[in-house]
């Protein structure tokens, strides 16, 4: 048991590291997206700043900070200023419960590789992400512009609808692990079938749930093909039309941070978390779990970008019909069947 001072110091260090890692990951996900989408469309993407354009995120950040922060005269100021903060705060907070590896011991301090391990971790993450919709909704309303309002309305309706199928798709995994703790869920996925197929939930009866989660996650983060809230062809830029400089960048950061959270959750719940082949000297064995985790998250993010470069956008009625008439019944059916099988086995 750690003393309270050590605990506070360790927690602060871990929080700072987590936030720095997340913000760096956000910046380089943007870079990756521009690069990959560029190559899909037969372009180069950023190439000028640094080798392979690797310093482009820094240049972008500098540009956002130095730009004039314009506040249109017709906005409702308190909420107009608060909205990007709400979006980015909830997006960053949710990463604090994501475990990226096993426990580690450094200088006699034994600590998990996450900010804190909570036994209802998954529920808290769902709670935090469900609050994130206020950033988008309030931005749309307080901008007092029709494009923003339409974007905000679309976003809130879409996020509330897809949250249901997202939540239901996770229940199957919860039934199989019997816990809300992300660590327990990952531990339940260790080992292999017949020596070579990993016992990840996605190969263990939760294929349908993974599909539902994937679709809902794309919609929850307002990404192509469900990026109706910011459809350029109809709404200029949707809920952030009236925002500029750092306030716009905060929405951008929130969107990419949410993508990363969703990718981490997919890795933990369906892709076996940090499980993977371990080999080599003890130091390598300590690092490999984190490497596998990051690799899986990277693959998921790559899928996001790939889809963006490939698929066109849905129509809004198709989007809603897809959520309520297809994904929701599918998630309920998966839940019923999983529950039945688990009940029969025990």
């Amino acid at each position, binding site marked *: 048991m750690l003393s309270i001072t050590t605990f506070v110091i360790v927690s602060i260090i871990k929080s700072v590291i987590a936030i720095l890692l997340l913000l760096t990951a956000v910046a380089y996900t943007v870079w990756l997206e521009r690069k990959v989408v560029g190559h899909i469309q037969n372009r180069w993407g950023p190439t000028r700043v640094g080798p392979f354009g690797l310093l482009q995120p820094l240049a972008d950040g500098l540009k956002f900070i130095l730009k004039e922060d314009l506040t249109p005269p017709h906005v409702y100021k308190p909420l107009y200023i608060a909205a990007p903060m709400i979006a980015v705060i909830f997006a960053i907070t949710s990463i604090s419960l994501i475990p990226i590896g096993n426990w580690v011991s450094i200088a006699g301090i034994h600590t998990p590789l996450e900010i804190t391990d909570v036994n209802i971790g998954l529920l808290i993450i769902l709670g935090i992400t*469900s609050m994130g919709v206020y950033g988008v909704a309030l931005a749309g309303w307080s901008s007092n512009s029709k494009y923003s309002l339409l974007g905000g309305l679309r976003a809130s309706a879409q996020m*509330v609808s897809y949250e249901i199928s997202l939540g239901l798709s996770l229940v199957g995994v919860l039934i199989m692990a019997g816990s809300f703790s992300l660590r327990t869920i990952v531990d339940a996925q260790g080992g292999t079938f017949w020596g070579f197929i990993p016992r990840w939930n996605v190969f263990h009866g939760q294929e349908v749930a993974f599909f539902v989660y994937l679709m809902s996650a794309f919609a929850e983060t307002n990404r192509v093909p469900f990026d109706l809230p910011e459809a350029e062809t109809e709404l200029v830029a949707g809920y952030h039309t009236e925002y500029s400089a750092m306030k716009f960048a905060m929405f951008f950061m929130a969107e990419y941070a949410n993508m990363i959270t969703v990718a981490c959750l997919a890795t933990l719940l369906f892709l076996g978390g940090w499980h993977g082949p371990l080999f080599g000297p003890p130091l390598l064995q300590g690092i490999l779990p984190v490497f596998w985790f990051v690799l899986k998250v990277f693959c998921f993010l790559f899928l996001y970008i790939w889809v963006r470069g490939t698929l066109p956008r849905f129509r809004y009625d198709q989007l809603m019909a897809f959520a309520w008439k297809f994904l929701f019944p599918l998630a309920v059916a998966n839940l019923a069947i999983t529950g039945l099988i688990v009940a029969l086995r025990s």
Partner: protein
Amino acid sequence: MLHLALFTIFGAVAVAGAVNLLVQRHPINSALSLIAVMASLSVEYLLLGAEFVAAVQVIVYAGAIMVLFVFVIMLLNAGEEELTRGSRVAILVGIPGVLIGAVLIAWTLVQHSGTGEVAIGALPGRPETIGWLLFHDFLLPFEVTSILVLIAIMGAVVLAGRPVPTSQQPRKEA
């Protein structure tokens, strides 16, 4: 010690949010105050050891129901409310009434405090316990409630889908 401090802080936030909900003239500010009340209530539940209820409070009330409130306010583009004669009377009668009620409740609580203390976290609040209670001990009331909700949803659909009588429809110009 930490528990008491957190309890006091979030209790104060909840009360302040509730007062602000009534004082604000603009519906969206009132809705946001209600979200603050819900969120601080959920922290209070967490402090009492009811972790599942705390999480559900945030997911369901703050994350879903209040989103719909805000959605409707945005959709109707409701502006600032004017004070009517009725609301002036409500203020004149309501504030003393609330004060008297609060004093009565506080007095009753003080009179009966100390009769039995429960340690924090002693009551079952874990997801397993709640699941067991809902699907085992209280299965029938739980299912009846779910049917009640289903009936309410169907009622809403019927009311919303009822065709407008022809006499009220705007006449089409020939």
